[in-house]
């Protein structure tokens, strides 16, 4: 299969049934995308497919087709990353790449989200350490 990840085209050999998360992590070594539940409940595996956040652990790699996949590795220059560090919006950091990807999707569509919009967009990304207040702050101040 062919897949476009972070503006690179890759040729991969994946068994049918391989999830996008497995393809990214195991085939492309893009381990910034985390798997924390493997069944679409926690958001740690969030990546962008044509700019829309999807749960890569329950998305089949072969179903992505020609769409452009963006992982956290493709967002290294995005101001959102610095905003997360600045606001201390992470603790153990395991959910954080997924949080960052969801946050980027939000502000790309809505550059100045309200608290309600932030909470709605981010409610699918669980953080067991409870960095939520500072995740909200990071998203509010991402352009500073």
């Amino acid at each position: 299969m062919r897949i476009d990840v972070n503006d690179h085209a890759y040729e991969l050999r994946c068994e049918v049934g391989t999830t996008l998360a497995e393809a990214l992590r195991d085939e492309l070594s893009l381990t910034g995308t985390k798997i924390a539940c493997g069944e679409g409940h926690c958001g740690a595996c969030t990546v962008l497919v044509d700019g829309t956040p999807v749960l890569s652990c329950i998305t089949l790699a072969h179903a992505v087709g020609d769409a452009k996949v963006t992982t956290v590795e493709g967002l290294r220059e995005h101001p959102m990353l610095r905003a997360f560090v600045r606001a201390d919006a992470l603790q153990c950091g395991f959910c954080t790449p997924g949080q960052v990807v969801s946050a980027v999707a939000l502000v790309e569509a809505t550059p100045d989200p309200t608290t309600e919009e932030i909470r709605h967009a981010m409610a699918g990304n669980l953080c067991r350490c409870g960095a939520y207040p500072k995740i909200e702050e990071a998203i509010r101040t991402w352009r500073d």
Partner: protein
Amino acid sequence: MARLIRTEKEVEGRYEEVFIVVEEDALEQWPAGPGEVVGRPATRVDGFERASGQAVYTADLRKPGMLHAAVLRSPHPRARATVDLSPALSLPGVHAAVGPGEIEQLSADCNYQGQAIAAVCADTLAQARAAVRAIRCDFEVLEPLLDPDEAVRRGELLGDPRVRERGDYERGLSEADVVVEAEYRTQVVLHNSLETHQAVVEWTREDAVEVHISTQYVWGIRDAVAEGLGLPADNVRVVCRYMGGGFGSKNSPDEYTFIAAELAKRTRRPVKCALTRREENTAAGNRNATIQRLTVGARSDGTLTALGGEFVNAVGWGGWSSGTEGPMQMLYACPNVKTTTHGAKLNLPPMKAFRAPGFVEGTFGLEALLDELAAKLDLDPLELRRRNHTEQTPEGGEYSDKNLLECYRRAEPHWARRHEVRARSTETVKRGVGMASQIWYGGGGPPSYAWVRVGSDGRATVVTAMQDIGTGTRTAMAQIAAEELRVPLEHVTVSLGDTDRGPYATLSAGSSTTPSVGPAVRAAAADARAQIEEIAEQRGLSKDASVAEVVDVLEDAQILGKGARGPNPTGMQVLTFGVQVAEVAVDVETGEVWVERIAAVHDVGRVINPLGASSQIEGGIIQGIGHTLSEERLHDPATGRLLTTTLDAYKLPTIADVPEIVSELLDVPDTHLTNLGSKGLGEPPIIPTAAAIANAIRDATGADVRRLPISREEMLRALREAEARQKEKVGAPAGV
């Protein structure tokens, strides 16, 4: 000078007597208040690595030739299994299988759901899982013991009942003007670290292994693995540079590490054994349920005359009976206290430490009971607590430092909001404010060691084999070294998490990392600094010359400083204290509860990093809110089968559940405690949250909630009970 002492060592509220070698702590504490780096907000030194996905967690580790293991576990809480591994071994990609009795951790004798029976390793995880499904396994299902009270009646206990008494409890009760009795229950809560328990084990020689593991204690893993595999401890290298949460559940190697070790030995390949989320929520530990039958006696002015408790810790099949009675024993000046604590052994998965084990549960019971007493006496709950405050330990001993009254004083503005909050109640939505106090350990202790290395570029590396489990200890250690060395924070890196590359440091549990390792890091930095000043003198440079200027001629030479954690103050209890004030809204028609605001004031001595500290407080409170309102591991009471192993069924708090959180730390160094005066902050913030919320609910509605989580069912039950009580009292329908 090194000195051998016999001392009490405390971990998670459990004490043991140990011999340790300590080195005297010769440094004076820094003056109170912010320094150049310490006491000032610092963003995480590893924040970018973690946020950007560059940090390599155990879950991300790929070794050449690495095989993946999967584990067959008992679906029954009590059963005898008969196992045939051969169908699994014939499947594609499968390299080895290990069955019951072949290693100690695998058993056909299943006493809880999730007991590991057998394991397989294969080229891919999918192949390993398919092979586990192919194992032929028949179960003789037996009747499980699930009821904690029944276990106590039958004497199915973990350890002897713990009876602790001071004064004369019965006399204390007879002297009381008012006696309140209540039964509180707390539920099983799951840690749900987002990185599940996992390890990659590789035999690097016939008699040496390397273990990469998501752990809170690399040295504990080293010793346990060495013992389990019969190897010298130095032949076991344990590495954990980044880990995705632990909360108390990752202090030991558990079955998965030994499964990986055995399969790695048989295949001569590195083997990874990682729990799935469902395995994690079955067999990776939990905060056990408790039943607390509590009694308080007091004079009409609120002076406590007696406190009593029968505590049942529903421990499960293994673990330990935590100090649920601790808050009742320790928080107030009451002269007559008697507690009995049972650890019920049940056919349920073993408990593990979970962020202030016992004290979270016990504080809910005690502090809710105190508010029931305050209501009965028509006393202000904060005033009731002040009247029973103690400046000495209840046994008459000394605290190294205690500023609980100051915490109360600083909480006053938050407490004073209750009139305005209540006034915002409507016909169906009642609002109120509640508070609860916090007591816990957190002083840490020896031993812990650190080295500090300064190169000719003037940059420093702190080397200590501790862990940063997400609390920000890596950043705190860099701050301490930067302060002492007088270099910018950006010029310090911290190398940690590797038993082959650094000296011993304590576990990341019990709020002990900063107070244990921090003083060692400071001592090591001071040792390096002294050498730098000697060189400055020989070069004719001023004492205040920058480190870079002093060492720039050194080329490959390095300054090496070493430091050790000194002893704790003799004969003093080192404890942490605090108070939280919660504001809630209760829909009295639906039973829905919202937490709208929590103010937290804690005293943990000197604060190293105010930014990271505020994050710790927020995180603790948010976990506390989950514990109070939504989280519960349920099992079917008939079969004992677990019902909430997914993150869909088990309700963790989300960003939408977070109230306004205001946090404040006293930031006063404990002058008796080491060269830093700092205590730990990991656990204190989760301790009073449940009780503060329950007490706010009482303030709002008059209802006594006594069971966690406060589901709508429990809320409506408490409201109906309050209404019935009100009717009885006035002979007319209640206003609620």
